[in-house]
């Protein structure tokens, strides 16, 4: 119980009054014994060894990291192969063009 001192401001008195009202109005509420007992039984029965769950989560993480690494390496490999194929194609095209030009020059010389 708060003691209201003489000379306190109105605001302080208001707050003290509200505090007293709240102190008497807000009181702990007990759950039904039946609910308490039933939930206790359920919680204990369904209680899983947490370590196993943690281990499962760790294993899942290891799998995910491994899969990401393999996926990443494969993607890089595919990318490199693509670039190499592209360079080879360009090389072939250039070579084909050059050979064509050479053939045309030879043909022109023969005509002359």
């Amino acid at each position, binding site marked *: *119980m708060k003691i209201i001192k003489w000379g306190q401001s109105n605001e302080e008195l208001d707050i003290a*009054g509200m505090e007293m*009202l*709240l102190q*008497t109005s807000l*009181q*702990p509420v007990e*759950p039904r014994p039946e609910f308490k007992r039933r939930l206790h039984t*359920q919680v204990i029965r369904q209680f899983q060894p*947490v370590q196993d769950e943690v281990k499962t989560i760790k294993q899942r993480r290891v799998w995910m990291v491994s899969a990401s690494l393999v996926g990443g390496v494969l993607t890089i490999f595919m990318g490199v192969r693509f670039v190499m194929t592209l360079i080879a194609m360009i090389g072939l095209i250039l070579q084909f063009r050059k050979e064509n030009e050479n053939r045309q020059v030879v043909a022109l010389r023969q005509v002359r």
Partner: protein
Amino acid sequence: MLDTSDETALVLAAQGDGEAFGVLYERYLGRIYTYIYYRTGNSEDAEDLTARVFFRAMRHIGNYRHRGLPFSAWLYRIAHNLVANWHRDNSRRKEVPLDDTLMIRHQGDHPEHELVINEERNRLLQVIRNLPADRQQLLILKFVEHMSNAQIGEIMGRSEGAVKSLYHRTLLNLRLEYEQIGGDWHSGNNGSDLGE
């Protein structure tokens, strides 16, 4: 087993000891139930959400130790989140009068007087339930759990000063709201009137 500290019980529970979790359950059930009861306003939802809090705590107890909070603060946070979801799901918020459990008996009082007191109390609780969630939480932790501002700060993720300031604003706001619906907060000055 019942006199073990929270820390010991937590370590054992994290290692899969169901009995240790049972100790924590016995220790905190009433507090969590009370908190949820005041936030929801009816015992059915309070029971449902309380059960969910303990099942969630049971599932995630292995992750708890890394957070550096007291176990009670952790439980209150779970309860707070579940109640927030509950309010979100119930778009049409139920205005259910609080159950008879709050009708506190006053031996020797006249029935009429008792009725008036309980009416005042229910009116106040109605005003509290219309406050923003963080303010409701603050009042429940302060007056039902008798926690210090520092402890409340740990649960709410605020500094002690911020809690103190919020508390002050909440009480002034509450007084205004309470007066607007015709409540007589001055009756709080007379402790004997309200079951002291």
